[in-house]
């Protein structure tokens, strides 16, 4: 199975409370924040690695290609994905200001026509823009079936993928015939979420994503990393523009109560919500 995983570099969401709005409100100021791979895209990579191995022996079969759009600095994140287990990387040289969900999807669609992956995996959304659209758009452009918000993926004996989607009020299960596209949610990295054909259904993964061992980090420097200009893939312009940003209004400081009885009393007489 050949899997293409699209990764986005984002400012560390663990420090999202330090995101500032620039003077005049025309930009988001991320200076001083650390860059990292969008967590949902890391989960997509983990799912791709699980789908291309025998969970028990870790014998890797097939190919995992990681792709990002960005300047040369984003190669740091691609190299870390290679160290984690991806086979090959492609960087699409682009300035962030030229990109929106539509442009990214078109560039990736063109790349996928060349790469011909069986499965495309992405995070359900990036934690900076929170747009949640690239996967759906890419699936449409390629006329691929898709499953968004995936919590489980099981490869069946005939190569079809049984995908459990986390939807409002339950789990919706779809069966996809590759080539297809899947966007992943948090729980895709739970111990019993992803099974390749080779992995025994009794096998349990360690919770979360795997980390690169030191020798792999050295070896990753020798893995192929191609660079393509954005213009070779699409000439589309971004359709969305952000003219202004603002911080949400801070909540007023609350009060501490001394007991459960006082709390209920205040909710009744002061807040009047009971």
């Amino acid at each position: 199975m050949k899997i293409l995983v699209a990764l986005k570099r984002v400012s560390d969401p663990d420090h999202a409370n330090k995101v500032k709005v620039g003077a005049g409100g025309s930009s988001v100021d991320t200076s001083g924040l650390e860059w990292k791979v969008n967590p949902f895209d890391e989960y997509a990579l983990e799912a791709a690695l699980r789908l291309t191995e025998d969970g028990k022996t870790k014998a890797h079969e097939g190919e995992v290609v990681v792709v990002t759009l960005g300047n040369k600095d984003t190669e740091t994140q691609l190299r870390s994905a290679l160290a984690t287990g991806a086979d090959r990387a492609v960087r699409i040289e682009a300035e962030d200001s030229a990109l929106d969900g539509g442009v990214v999807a078109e560039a990736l669609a063109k790349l996928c026509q060349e790469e011909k992956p069986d499965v495309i995996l992405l995070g359900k959304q990036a934690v900076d823009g929170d747009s949640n659209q690239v996967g759906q758009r890419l699936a449409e452009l390629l006329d691929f079936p898709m499953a968004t918000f995936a919590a489980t993926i099981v490869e069946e004996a005939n190569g079809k993928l049984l995908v459990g989607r986390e939807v409002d009020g339950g789990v919706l299960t779809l069966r996809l015939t590759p080539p297809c596209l899947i966007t992943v949610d948090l729980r895709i990295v739970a111990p019993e979420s992803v099974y390749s054909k080779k992995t025994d259904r009794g096998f349990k993964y360690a919770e979360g994503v795997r980390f690169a061992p030191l020798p792999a980090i050295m070896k990753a420097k020798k893995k192929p990393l191609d660079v393509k200009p954005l213009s070779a893939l699409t000439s589309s312009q971004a359709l969305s523009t952000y003219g202004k940003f603002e911080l949400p209004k801070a909540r007023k400081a609350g009060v501490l109560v001394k007991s459960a009885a006082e709390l209920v009393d205040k909710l009744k007489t002061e807040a009047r919500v009971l």
Partner: protein
Amino acid sequence: MSKALVIAELAEDGALKRATLSAITFAKKAAPAIAAFDILVLGAQTAAASEELAAHGAGKVIRIEDASLSHYVAERFAPSVAEVARGYQAVFATATSFGKDLLPRVAARLGAGYAGDCADVSVDGGKLTYKRPMYAGNVFGFCQLEGAVQLATVRQSEVDPSEPGGSKSPIEQGSFSSPTAAAGRVEYVSLDAVKSARPELTDAKVVVSGGRALKERFFEVMEPLADALGAGLGASRAAVDAGYCPGDFQVGQTGKIVAPSLYVAVGISGAIQHIAGMKGSKVIVAINKDPDAPIFQVADYGLVADLFTAVPEMVQALKR
């Protein structure tokens, strides 16, 4: 004259989902840039929902009925939605797992821009301007979209549901557009709906959520509190990850976004991601034994106490 199309969402039995009413309000708020709006209903049984939707002031309600639309699958819905959308300048749906799945796919089909999960819409320089939470709700961005048609989804917790009123809209039959090859490679298998006597988290007027501190006693402690308040029952990601309750309990940026009148956080420390999912609540209560827990910074009322004694006491006080 600019017109908007609102996409209705139906349950599997054809019942109208209440979430749709927030997208209708959004279309009304988009005036004067949007002079009128129509509503599109797709499904295997659309008659009852169409009647209900005809009471909300739309120019017309368009129903597209086909046996293949009995279960929602994006590949089967997107072509019909896109064909109808070509006659409009804006397309809105509520940002449920239905709207968030479908609209970006339709946007790509139309070569159009998309703004997801919008908290509000206004008109600036004659153009629709979407207010979107970004960076886990830590920043609002104001987005405008170019192109002949634009699409947006609406955050349900931020936009009140439309109230019926005005004259009844005419109901028309729309035509079903055949899906593309992709639809032949996706098979709907099942929907395992969570059955609960409690109100749905996103609709509940009161929500109580538990955190990891509850351990295996999550339900033992939280259910009496939820019952006493008639509340929806939620949880932090940590409690879900630890296996103390099911995944669809999760409130937060990556779970459900809620904005009830009263939100009670029990044993939840208050990670950014959790706060992003509940800070729109009118009144927030936090019960936690750690006085330094970040949850107290957003709480209107804080109680520093051991939850295993404080919650039963609260239940007793509520029953009085």
